[in-house]
């Protein structure tokens, strides 16, 4: 892989890190502390099997089933249990709903807490210093960087995940989707809309290939 050796590129770390990881991995395997097949199994789960597709199912159902939505807002961990993607031990899920009056945004200023079971592992920007620093002090500025502009009268609520509670944003259902099935609606739901940095897509966005 070409690398000039000077640019500290976050997507192509210096090979000495990769070597250090290999060294630690072989040490832990030799000591019998880590099973390489278990490493493969966890990587496979989080690279391929768990991701925003789970959260999209939850939100689409909340949009189409008012009773489910109420259960989700009352106790998201119980409600998501209906889908068979349970959380990690200790994690409790809370769903917060966007409305015409309130927009919710999730951050972890201290590290990278994120609802793995419904969204998978967080994107790099969610774990980055600029986002963690400014989501709480300048949420409208942060939203603007994602192209999200809110009317002045909308209240922005920022959820700082400082404990083992995990937050899922239920974006507003876009207009012009009356009568759509849950499967159709899933196409409008993005990972970013469930973190709260964007709105769900509109039907026009889909037609435009956005």
């Amino acid at each position, binding site marked *: 892989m070409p690398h000039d050796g000077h640019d500290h590129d976050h*997507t192509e770390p210096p090979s000495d890190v990769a070597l250090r990881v290999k060294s630690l991995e072989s040490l832990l395997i030799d000591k019998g502390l880590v099973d390489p097949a278990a490493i493969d199994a*966890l990587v496979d789960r989080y690279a391929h099997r768990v991701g925003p597709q789970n959260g999209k199912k939850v939100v689409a159902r909340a949009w189409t089933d008012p009773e489910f939505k109420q259960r989700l807002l009352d106790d998201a961990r119980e409600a998501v249990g209906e889908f068979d993607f349970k959380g990690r031990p200790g994690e409790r899920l809370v769903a917060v709903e966007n409305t015409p009056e309130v927009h919710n945004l999730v951050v972890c*200023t201290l590290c990278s807490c994120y609802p793995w079971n419904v969204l998978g592992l967080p994107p*790099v920007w969610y774990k*980055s210093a600029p986002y*963690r620093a400014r989501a709480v002090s300048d949420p409208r500025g942060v939203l603007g960087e994602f192209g999200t502009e809110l009317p002045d009268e909308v209240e922005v609520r920022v959820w700082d995940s400082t404990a083992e*509670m995990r937050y899922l944003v239920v974006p507003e259902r876009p207009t012009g989707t009356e009568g759509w099935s849950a499967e159709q609606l899933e196409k409008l739901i993005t990972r970013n809309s469930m973190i709260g940095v964007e709105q769900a897509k509109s039907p026009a966005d889909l037609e435009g290939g956005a």
Partner: protein
Amino acid sequence: MDNVHDMGGMQAFGPINPEPETEEPVFHAEWESRVFAMTLLSGFLRQWTNDMARHARESQNPVTYLRNTYYENWLAGLETLWVGSGQVTPEELAKGISSGKSDIQAIDAEKALVSVKGAGGPVDPEAPVNAGLKVGDRVRVKTFHPMGHTRAPRYLRGREGVIDRIHGRHIYPDTHTVENVEDYPLYSVRFEGAELWGPDGNKRSAVYADLWEPYLEQP
């Protein structure tokens, strides 16, 4: 510990520059995925707690923490934790060569997948909460300066908010070790933007943070 991981309200980090959602891979290099999985599997062995793991990453030199990528910080934390546990010697770590098997049994793939999917609250969810504060109570986050781990961010200390909901009793991170598990009521507290950032702060914004009872006092 008051270190640079506690980033809420810091400035000068520049723009976020997110990768487009549809183009971003889960892992940006294979080694990241190995560090991720090794960290989870090591944690399941209960030689340390999740809070001790966070503390290992957070107590690095701040310059190192900021220079590292995310998974480099995980790697540094994992190395520190294994050496700290006494199961790996500094010499073994430096050479990458084992001087003898551990008597700890590694978690196999099947158990690992059960562990990541396991249900269960932080403490017994059926136990009475015995909350000393109620929804609507006005509270202030205590001013303190801990050398150890804490989940009370600096930007909230000394600030006043209102209890929005009670999450039950949760393990208290500040004292959480393998041998010591305390639990306290956990509250979601709402802080108005102007209380945190002054009159120049964002109009009509509020921060909700989850804070344990020992962090809070009556104003």
